């Protein structure tokens, strides 16, 4: 139980950080996480571009809750719980579409796309106390957006989303700066897959650059085979060919910030894209420089960033842009949903290049993600020994002086996550 069991050992004197492996296997801890983490934090629902027109909707599960993410007839983006107020059935079974009404097929109650209860068959059988105006679809306590990235929170007293995101907004802005108008859209085609591992292992994996040379050696070979120059690191302590940092953004958010070596659709050409792509990449680069200036353009085009918004949203701006979220389905299983995203202005050829670059690394058929899935599942299998071998070691980089930067291949950002998680779970 919380308070009795120590989840982390954060020994600043000995520079040792250890994680109690029970956090990845316990049903009881997951039950508490649903209240203290998923019940208290802003949780990503979707992007406004998924529901472009009035009446557009998508249904999905967010933090285990079936919701309808939609744009109502007046153009307001909304999030309804997909649960009939009458007897509890879902009122929308389609994955996506456009609807004026959501209809419960059990007894025929129907709701407007703004969530209001529109019609109850035989409503003359009810007393005067029956108020249709009070029986609209329920919704999360709070629902707010930053740059059309919509989040819900079940806690009415939570700070505003933009305050919650805090310094992470700078890193979201860097992604959106790829677009001349600052407008990024989610691209059709959703990758949804389960991983038989605790959801927090995906948080760690999404920003852990220490694992790249071992877990992803076949991807590195593929990049080499495709003409990308991958040199051994020149500086002591580096794991990757180029330098990168791990940055604590506060509130449990964190990011890697790496000098690019792997190519970027916006806008760093690599041989993998083909000679024919060079002029267009140059053009995209030129537009960035004209709009943002040389320094900012370099930040946008020549750095890769894997950003975690606590607790379960990852925005990777690497080989391509991916928005990825994952929810626990029991302590040993998570459901991952991932999208590609890109500037709305992108040409057909640039969009095709972005999607191709995505698949070189990301997703269940990519050249890297399947190996991430595999190692996370191997961790979960190994953790079956948690009672006999109870601590995971996460001290990498901890011995550095306070003013010395933490590298992407250190475990500073992972510790950032765990400290915040621990704070929410046990209040210290």
């Amino acid at each position, binding site marked *: 139980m919380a308070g009795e069991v120590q989840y982390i050992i954060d020994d600043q004197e000995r520079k040792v950080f250890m994680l109690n492996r029970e956090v990845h296997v316990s049903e009881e801890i997951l039950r508490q996480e649903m209240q203290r983490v998923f019940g208290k934090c802003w949780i990503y629902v979707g992007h406004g571009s998924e529901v472009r027109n009035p009446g557009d909707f998508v249904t999905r599960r967010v933090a285990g809750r079936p919701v309808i993410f939609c744009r109502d007839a007046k153009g307001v983006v909304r999030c309804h719980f997909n649960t009939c107020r009458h007897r509890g059935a879902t009122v929308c079974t389609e994955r996506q579409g456009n609807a004026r009404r959501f209809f419960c097929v059990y007894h025929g109650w129907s709701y407007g796309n703004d969530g209001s209860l529109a019609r109850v068959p035989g409503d003359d059988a009810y007393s005067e106390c029956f108020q249709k105006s009070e029986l609209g679809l329920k919704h999360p306590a709070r629902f707010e957006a930053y740059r059309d990235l919509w989040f819900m929170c079940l806690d009415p007293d939570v700070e505003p989303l933009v305050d919650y995101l805090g310094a992470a907004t700078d890193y979201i802005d860097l992604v959106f700066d790829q677009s001349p108008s600052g407008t990024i859209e989610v691209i*059709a085609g959703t*990758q949804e897959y389960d991983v038989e591992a605790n959801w927090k292992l995906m948080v760690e994996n999404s920003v852990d650059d220490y694992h790249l040379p071992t877990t992803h050696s076949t991807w590195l070979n593929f990049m080499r085979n495709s003409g990308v120059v991958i040199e051994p690191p020149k500086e002591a302590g580096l794991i990757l060919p180029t330098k990168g940092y791990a940055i604590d953004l506060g509130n449990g958010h964190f990011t890697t910030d790496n000098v690019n070596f792997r190519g970027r659709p916006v806008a760093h050409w690599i041989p993998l894209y083909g000679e024919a792509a060079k002029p267009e990449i140059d053009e995209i680069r030129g537009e960035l420089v004209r709009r943002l200036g040389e320094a900012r353009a370099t930040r946008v085009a020549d750095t890769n960033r894997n950003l975690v918004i606590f607790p379960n949203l990852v925005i990777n701006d690497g080989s391509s842009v991916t928005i990825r979220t994952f929810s626990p389905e029991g302590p040993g299983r998570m459901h991952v949903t991932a999208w590609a995203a890109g500037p709305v202005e992108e040409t057909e050829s640039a969009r095709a290049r972005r999607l191709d670059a995505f698949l070189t690394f990301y997703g269940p058929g990519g050249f890297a993600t399947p190996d991430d899935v*595999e190692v996370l599942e191997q961790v979960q299998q190994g953790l079956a020994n948690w009672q006999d071998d109870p601590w995971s070691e996460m001290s990498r980089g901890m011995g550095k002086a306070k003013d010395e930067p933490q590298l992407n291949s250190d475990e500073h950002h992972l510790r950032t996550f765990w400290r915040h998680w621990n704070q929410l779970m046990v209040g210290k």
Partner: protein
Amino acid sequence: MMAITDSLPIPLTRAQVEDFLYAEAELLDSWKLDEWLQLLTDDAEYLVPSNDCPQGSHRTTLFTIADNAERIRQRVIRVMDPNCHAEFPKSRTRRFISNVRIVEQQDRELVVTANFICYRFRRHERVREYVGQYRYVLRRADLGLLIRERRVLLDAHELGSLGSVSFIL
């Protein structure tokens, strides 16, 4: 390996196409991927659309897999490497192909659809059942049929418990 050699009859019969698909399945299930590569044209494509957009184009829609011929060769290099952790040890797969239909037949190419079930087994994991339809564009070549396009449409609404597609589906 193929029954069909030097002179391909026009039109091909369903039985001849079935023999080709069965032979290909045998190569894939036995991980003879270098031999499998010999069945592909130089402009071959291997496509697995995302489960929610089976009819999309890979140029505008995010797919699970959208390989051109070079990417297919790189994929084979990768999956045969013992450091391809998702496929080491290799999955054991067994695919069943039925409902084979020649839906279009021209002098040079034919379009063939077939239903499939592919069972995938890994140690300590439950069986995964990939069910769907193959859609082939096959090309007549001097030595027999070759695969110009191999599109795999999965029936599952999402990959979900199927996990990764780390083998050649």
